[in-house]
């Protein structure tokens, strides 16, 4: 064996270690779209709240100790929008990831994909249930911070099983979540920054780094 053989062997080893333990087809392009959906959803929610509840005299809902009725009432429309944003995001992520897997000849559903998804979903499921509890105990002002925090934790955890870059997105989401926990009157703004802007920035970075 000469030097070139040894170098080839080392790059083989490296590639096998990476392909067998990390989920690689994850696409940055989907991040850009998901961010746009989130921004649209946040913009609509802000408009909807202003349109329907600015006349009730409680324009500073978080400042008052207990959340006013008005914040709990408009659930129907907002839940619908949230659900729409979530479904569109999942479909988009699936579409772009599948496209990339086909293009680069990577497996879409293998052990690494299952492991990444499972590790992403465990903290997310806990977060989802926790948000339901917040809702039940009438703390709608804590929903945005809780979503950001749990999402950040989920990304941080899942990063071990896919691109390490995901860790930084997770940390940024957690920081926004913590800030939002204290500045509850800007909940929707922080939500838009975290789920909208950060996704777009992350998507662009990943696209240029790995997909071009």
């Amino acid at each position, binding site marked *: 064996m000469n030097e070139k053989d040894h170098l080839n*062997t*080392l790059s*083989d080893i490296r590639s*096998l270690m990476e392909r067998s*333990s990390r989920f690689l087809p994850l696409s940055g392009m989907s991040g850009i779209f998901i961010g746009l959906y989130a921004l649209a959803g946040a913009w609509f929610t802000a408009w909807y709240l202003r349109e329907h509840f600015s006349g009730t005299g409680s324009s500073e809902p978080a400042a008052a100790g207990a959340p006013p009725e008005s914040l709990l009432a408009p659930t129907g429309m907002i839940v619908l929008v949230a659900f729409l944003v979530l479904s569109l995001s999942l479909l988009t992520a699936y579409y772009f990831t599948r496209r990339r897997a086909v293009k680069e000849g990577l497996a879409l559903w293998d052990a690494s994909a299952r492991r990444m998804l499972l590790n992403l979903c465990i903290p997310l499921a806990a977060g989802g249930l926790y948000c339901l509890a917040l809702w039940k105990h009438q703390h709608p002002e804590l929903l945005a911070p809780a979503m950001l925090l749990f999402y950040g934790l989920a990304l941080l955890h899942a990063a071990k099983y896919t691109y390490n870059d995901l860790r930084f997105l997770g940390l940024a989401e957690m920081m926004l979540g913590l800030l939002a926990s204290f500045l509850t009157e800007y909940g929707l703004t922080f939500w838009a920054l975290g789920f909208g802007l950060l996704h777009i920035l992350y998507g662009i970075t990943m696209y240029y780094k790995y997909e071009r």
Partner: protein
Amino acid sequence: MKEYVSGLNREFESRVRLGIMSILMVNDRAEFKTLKELLALTDGNLASHLTALEKAHYIKVKKQFVDRKPNTTYSATAQGRRAFTEHLNLLEKFLKSNKQ
């Protein structure tokens, strides 16, 4: 320079075996099917290399039934991990000494 090359582990002469060990270094365990797909090998070819590694006590085999189907998983032993790491260290030394 020569002694580094002769020090390289004979068990790892084949790239397939190095490949199997690479996968098992970063995964607690791997199924036969997973190994086969990642290394793009035929059943027979992969099986013979797995047997060789098992004989060297570098990997452990676990056979069990999942949903009444036989399921074979492989994991690296402490001895195998040590041997693999030493092998990589030697490769590194060899490459470094060549550069100078």
